[in-house]
Every structure is written in structure tokens, then in C-alpha cells.
């Protein structure tokens, strides 16, 4: 125990020696140092790529008042813990850890560096110097569902899931609810790829869905493979995921959900700079700009586009919630009563389909 205490003090005093003990840095070091830990390569064109765009936005915003550093392809577990510690030792003032699997490592490292701020994406554990942030992508899914339900002719909408986890299930439910609203005959075909990243498999999944009659394909995987498959098929609608995938606009890609971390990163780094940073739990959606809706192309009929934009506006200003009752679960039991909206806890751990979706969630 004694040695452990000594190490902690040593780490902490090393941090102090580097002059990052207080939020103000009246103590000499002028640049605010911001660290980013990425789970994939910045060239993945999806999740990590978008986080890195957020990092570049921070640099663009604050110029030479900030210095950003990043390490890519950091495995979850001890490697991530080491990289975070290294950044803290090297004088980072705030560190963004951008994968769910970094949750416990972030908490561990944060405990050793009480004066360094940590921001963990998509997790649920916080501390005095650890904030969490995540995006309400399901709001974007609602808009996609609306467009998909309006545009499908076969009434079959394909959905490519990665792994059956709450984040993905929430998106499926949200899209389904809004597709059914405009088109009661619509059905979802869901295929689980069981990978975060395997473009060839995503291409296969999209092709299979198209072959089985889907004329709209929604994807919760980040490659453009489904877009290309749809383009080849000729009459299939798709949506960009993570990034805009504008190279497939105006058709098959008719809109997109864009992970836009820039506003949040700029705001949080700003808070560190002026000393107003506090531990918070942020779950932002369209309103705060964390979920971007890529331009709805002219391939979408004008009135559908208008409705979609109205839906977007109501989600953005909070006048409408994507999960508003009456809703039942798949097994017919009550989920939300008339006018009731789902609370964040339920949404965060969502592990059931809503009524009307066929098939079981694999486990």
C-alpha cells in the first residue's frame, strides 16, 4: 500500500511539475494540451475518422492556443490505460477517450490524475474529473425511418446491424417506429454482421438484403460497401452512416447520419481553457449538432423531404421525442403509454424490439 501511495503521489507530482495542476495555467504553460485516444485507425473512414475530424476542428478553432495529440488503433484494456497515462504524464489537460471499451481504463487513470480532465465517449461511469458524452443517433434514425417508409415500394426495408447491443437496437426501433407511422405495411429484415469492421461482409449483407426484396437499406456499419451494392442494384435507397458518404449522392444515398463531434469538442476544450469545466453527462442529438443530418437529396419526393425536415426540426427543438407512446414491446406488453416518452435509462439499456418487428435479438 505504501508503495502504491508513493506512486500515486509521484504521478501526481509529475503532473504538477509539468504545470497542469490548475485549470487556469497561470503557471506558465500557455497551450492547452488535448489528447485523443482512438480505437481504430484515423483512416477507417467511419467512427475514428469522424472523431479525428473533431480534433482537427478544435485545432482550427483555437489555433496556437491548443496542442492536440492522438494515438490511433489503441486496443481496449491495458494498452489504452497506458496510452492515457502517457498522455497525462506528458501534460495533457484534457483527454478524450473515444470507445466504449475504454470505460474502466479511463476511470482508473482519472483516479491517478485528479487534475486532468477526462471525457469518455458512450460510457456510463463518471467521476469528478470524468465526463461522459454520447450522441442520440436514434434521432437521426427516426428521420431515416420516415424517409425509408415513404420511399419503399416493396415495403421491405433491410437493416445491417453490427452486434446486437443497445445502441444498435435503439436505432432499429427508432427507424421502425417512424417507418410504420407513414407506411403500416412496412417490414424490416435485419441482418447481423457480427463485426465492427469488415467491408466485404457488409457488401455481402447489403446484397443479400437487396436480393431478398429490400429496396431501402439502412446500415449500422461504417463502410460504403452497402452504398456501392445499392448503386449496382440501381433502384435501392441508402443512407450514409458516420460520415456523409456524399460520393454516393444524390442516389442511392439520399441522406445520412453524420457523427459530428466538433461542436462538443470545441465547447469542452473551451471550458477547460476558461476554467469552467465540470463533470457532466452529455447525450446530445440533432439539436446540439452532435448528430448531423446530411443533405436530403432531390431523389426524395418533395413532400417527403418537407416532412423529414419538419421531423428534424421538432426533434431538434425538443418538441417531439423519437420514442413517444403509445408503444408496445415486441411481445405485446406495454412499453410507453399515450404521450409518454422513454426515459434515458430505458433507452441506454434497450434490449428489446418494439411491436411489429419480426425475429429475435440474437444473444
Amino acid at each position, binding site marked *: 500500500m505504501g508503495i502504491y501511495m508513493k506512486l500515486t503521489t509521484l504521478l501526481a507530482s509529475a503532473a504538477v511539475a509539468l504545470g497542469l495542476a490548475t485549470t487556469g495555467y497561470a503557471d506558465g504553460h500557455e497551450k492547452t494540451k488535448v489528447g485523443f485516444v482512438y480505437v481504430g485507425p484515423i*483512416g477507417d473512414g467511419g467512427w475514428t*475518422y469522424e472523431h479525428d475530424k473533431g480534433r482537427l476542428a478544435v485545432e482550427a478553432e483555437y489555433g496556437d492556443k491548443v496542442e492536440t495529440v492522438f494515438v490511433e488503433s489503441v486496443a481496449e484494456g491495458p494498452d489504452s490505460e497506458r496510452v492515457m497515462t502517457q498522455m497525462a504524464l506528458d501534460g495533457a489537460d484534457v483527454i478524450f477517450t473515444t470507445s466504449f471499451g475504454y470505460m474502466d481504463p479511463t476511470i482508473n487513470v482519472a483516479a491517478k490524475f485528479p487534475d486532468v480532465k477526462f471525457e469518455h465517449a458512450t460510457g456510463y461511469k463518471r467521476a469528478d474529473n470524468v465526463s461522459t458524452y454520447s450522441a442520440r443517433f436514434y434521432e437521426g434514425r427516426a428521420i431515416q425511418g420516415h424517409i425509408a417508409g415513404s420511399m419503399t415500394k416493396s415495403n421491405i426495408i433491410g437493416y445491417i446491424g453490427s452486434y446486437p447491443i443497445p445502441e444498435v437496437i435503439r436505432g432499429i426501433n427508432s427507424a421502425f417506429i417512424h417507418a410504420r407511422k407513414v407506411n403500416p405495411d412496412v417490414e424490416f429484415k435485419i441482418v*447481423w454482421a*457480427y463485426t465492427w469492421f469488415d*467491408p466485404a461482409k457488409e457488401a*455481402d449483407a447489403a446484397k443479400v438484403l437487396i436480393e*431478398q426484396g429490400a429496396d431501402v437499406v439502412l446500415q449500422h456499419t461504417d463502410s460504403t460497401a452497402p452504398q*456501392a451494392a445499392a448503386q449496382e442494384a440501381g433502384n435501392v435507397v441508402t443512407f450514409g452512416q458516420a460520415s456523409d458518404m456524399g460520393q454516393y449522392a444524390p442516389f442511392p444515398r439520399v441522406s445520412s447520419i453524420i457523427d459530428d463531434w466538433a461542436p462538443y469538442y470545441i465547447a469542452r476544450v473551451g471550458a477547460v481553457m476558461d476554467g469552467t469545466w465540470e463533470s457532466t453527462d452529455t447525450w446530445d442529438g440533432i439539436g446540439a449538432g452532435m448528430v448531423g443530418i446530411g443533405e436530403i437529396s432531390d431523389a426524395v419526393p418533395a413532400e417527403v423531404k418537407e416532412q423529414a425536415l419538419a421531423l428534424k426540426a421538432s426533434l431538434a427543438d425538443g418538441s417531439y421525442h423519437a420514442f413517444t407512446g403509445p408503444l408496445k414491446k415486441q411481445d405485446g406488453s406495454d412499453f410507453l403509454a399515450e404521450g409518454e416518452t422513454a426515459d434515458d435509462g430505458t433507452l441506454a439499456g434497450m434490449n428489446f424490439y418494439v411491436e411489429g418487428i419480426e425475429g429475435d435479438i440474437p444473444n
Partner: protein
Amino acid sequence: MDLSAINPILFVAGFLVAATPLIFAALGELVVEKSGTLNLGVEGMMITGAICGFATAVETGSPLLGFAAAAVGGALLSLLFAFLTQIALANQVASGLALTLFGLGLSALLGQSYVGIKPPRLPDINFGPLADIPVIGPILFTHDIILYLGVALVAGVWATLKFTRAGLILRAVGESHDAAHALGYKVVRIRTLAIMFGGACAGLGGAYISLIRVPQWTEGMTAGVGWIALALVVFASWKPWRLLLGAYLFGGITQLQLNLQGAGVAIPVEYLAMSPYLITIIVLVILSRDKSAAPACLGRTFHASS
């Protein structure tokens, strides 16, 4: 559940495409192994081919030039392996693994400015009325030229190994490098050529993924196909036609799995995903009765004076 949703014609056409990168990579490795060398660097050569092909296709606007560049890129990288194992007599298993590591890094460096770009598309060959033949037309006559090249290459390798002098020499070197050497054949040169052929094929397979199957460039996008190719060579017991069949089987299982999911059949995905590997093991056991299948010198280092 609605099995009628699965269209058997499209299903077959689908796995023909899915199997093509595997066919190229595995066929190249088959030739390498026939010469008595085990190159575990297939994944590294594939991903290098994928970016060389992608970058060239984007810069020149010609997918076919892209494929040519992919073959060259794969072959060049394989020269590193040839140098290590044939000249410096390093261990083949370790050299192959190092090649994969190196190839993954190199391709990521080369590809930094190609993320998020759409490559030029290689059109399908127009077979005219042939494509309208029921069932056979959509299955066989709706593909791009590279897919047919893959099948033709299988036939070519088969014929070369079976009927030509070059094939005989290659097999002789793989069966007993000392005997082949004593007969005056240049073992190192022959193996180096085989390794380069393997590299070129792996490069083509990688480019098929980045230019046709997906098509896009992202780091690590071959996602393990190179390793499956290694399994496939054994599965095929070093026979080209069996390799073709095996590639369709491997490709078909993934397609079938996705098709069943789409049709609403509740299947345990992970367990189905294991099945190609388990089947390969079973095939290995069955094949083990046939002792002649594997090249006798596979993986062994050759030095002329030893």
C-alpha cells in the same frame, strides 16, 4: 421465417463474386506451397495489392491498370519474403508473419490520402443474349472480367502443374529440393518465381476487394481473407479444382448465413461463422489418409551445400 425470400439464382451469383478474392489468393499460395515454401504473409500481400490497385485505378481512371498495379505490388512485396527465406534462409513461418505485419503498415501509409474516395468501376462483360438464358444467364454471364480471369487462372495452374515441364519441375522442387538440385534445377530461382506468382495473385485478390467487392479503401479492409486463403489451400489438398470448389463453399457459407438471417431464420450466427474452419479441420482429418497430398518439403529451408 420465409425461406422463399431467398432467390437461389442470385444466391449462387453472389457467392461466385464473394469467392473471387479467395480464389486468387489461395491459388497463388497453392503454387507457392507446391514449390515447397509456406508463405503466411498472404494477408499482407493482399492488403498491399488492395491499396496499389485502388490508388492506381483512382489516379489513372482505369480499373484494369489498377489490377495490373496490384499484381506488381503484391509481387514486389513477396520479393522481401523470397529474399528472407531463399537467400537469407530465414524461418518461413516467422518471415511470413513479419510480411503480414509489414504489409498492413505499408498499405496504411500508402493509403492515407485515399480514404473516402469512390474508385472507377469495372463494368461487367456484356455477353448479349447469353445473359438472358434462364438461370444460367444471370449466374454465369453477369460478371466482370477479373472474376472470369480467376477461374481461367485455376484452369491454367491446373494444366501447368499437370501437363507441362514447368509444372513438373515445380512439383519436383516441392517434393525434394535436394533431388531437384542434384538434377541441376535452380531451386532458389524456381521458388522465388513461385513466391512472386503467389504475391501477384494475392495482390489481385486484394484489389478485387478494394475495387469491386466493396469498393473503397480503408485500412485493414481485407479483414482476414488472407488467412482463410491459407486454410483453403489445405482444404483443397493442393489441387486447383478442389480449391475452386472450396472457395465457393467458403464464400457460400457466409452468403447462406446472411441469407438465412434475412429470411428470419433464428440461427446462432457465431456458431455458423465457425463452421468453415471446423469443416476445414474435418477435411484435413479425412485427407490425412492421403499422404501424398502435401508437398514433402513444405516449410523446409533449402541450402545448396547441405
